[in-house]
């Protein structure tokens, strides 16, 4: 069985993407606090138990999107490179 090596660069990238997902979740929280009635700004931190799983969900949802994007890029890259080469 081959050893799988995950480079530090990849880990850093994924962490960065997860952090971005967490920021998105926090922004959604801000939106909910501002939009719904009977809320308090204390909810910015008091719903941490919901923010973490939602941010994870957003991160997981980025995977097929990124895979699709990667696939598309692989299709389009030869055409784009041919143009660059000219």
């Amino acid at each position, binding site marked *: 069985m081959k050893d799988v090596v995950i480079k530090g660069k990849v880990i850093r990238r994924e962490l960065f993407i997860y952090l971005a997902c967490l920021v998105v979740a926090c922004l959604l929280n801000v939106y*909910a606090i501002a*939009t*719904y009635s009977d809320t308090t700004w204390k*909810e910015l931190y008091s*719903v941490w138990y*919901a923010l973490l799983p939602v941010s994870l969900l957003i991160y997981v949802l980025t995977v097929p999107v990124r895979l699709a994007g990667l696939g598309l890029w692989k299709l389009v890259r030869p055409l784009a490179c041919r143009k660059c080469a000219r």
Partner: protein
Amino acid sequence: MKKNVLSRRDFLRECGLLGVAAMAASYPWLDALSEEKQQATTGEKVRLGMIGPGSRGQYHLNFLVRNPKVEIVWLCDIYQPSLDKALEIAPGAKTCKDYREVLDDPTVDGVYVVTPLDTHRQITVDAFRAGKHVFCEKSLSHTLADSKAMYDAHLETGKVFFVGQQRLYDPYYLEAIRMIEEGTFGPIEGIKTFWYRNNDWRRKVPSPELERQINWRLYREYSCGVMTELACHQLQLGTWIYKDIPETVMGSGAITYWKDGREVEDNVNVIYTYNDGRRISFESIISNKFYGLEEQIMGNLGTIEPEKGKYYFEKTPPMPGFLRMINDLEKDLYGNISFAGPSWDPEIARRNHGEFLLGKKRPGGNDGSGYLNDAFVEAVITGKQPPMIAEEGYYSTILSLLGQQAMDEKRIITFPGEFKIDYNYK
């Protein structure tokens, strides 16, 4: 040995009663426990006799022997093993088998009557006539007439009369009543009480001829079973909260599980209806303990469960906005998919964790009995009867006996006028 979890000062502070004025205004029967009144009786000593120091009597003895104002001078019981156990708690006391020896002792100030119910009237009335103050365990008696005779003797002689209704001295109940009277829960619309157990309620009997003497609670000659032993505690809340007595009583009871020769029901349900339609109900099944014991006091704005030490408001704070947004998203995503299902949402009891009365979890082992005993001692010293104590004890007994009568006669009983007393509800 059980100890009061709260010290006297803590108890007063918890009930917001450190000042005499606060005490007198809110709970006049607690007046004797104020710091000022306590200091006024420092150095005084009362001489008490205990008649019938079985398990409940020994429980009270454990509090009394710790009170420096008390000297236990007599222990009286016809059952030697109970006497022996009581002597271990109060070793200096004299013993006898005839309660009249205790009453004939001129140095005795007060007596505890902790015998089976059928003997309460004789001993209590004799004690009053002998000039003794009386603490009688609940229920007063197993008949309406005897209970009235005991209360009348108290009025006639002017002697102090306490009944073993410890909820009147339980900080959690006091706090619940305070919040109710302040209108925190709105008008109280109903009180549901229940007491479930799963045991045969029997005590070990060393020989068959002692069966009725030791397991007296199971025989109608001496007791009305769960009504006089359990219900009377909880029914007392009806008078305390509604500040009234019910107009009618109905009930149903039977021996459904413990068919062992007992004469009292093991499965009862009784409803007391007041003239404005509100009710207090009592149910007890002693072959299932899942729901335990509780009084559910239901107001328009909230509910109190004093045994758990909690209260719950009808209106609960809304969910955080973020969770509501997720819920709305889910509804939008799945709401348009049709499945066979109900077209209405049932009103299911809400999951509401509530708040603690007095701001903290109710500790075990403190049911107000310690303060009740202290209050009796203070009353014997001063000779002053606190308001409400005798009347609440009297009516709780009458209500429990009327419930028994409703079950026996299988009809709706109207509260009999001859058993109403002149009671100025606080």
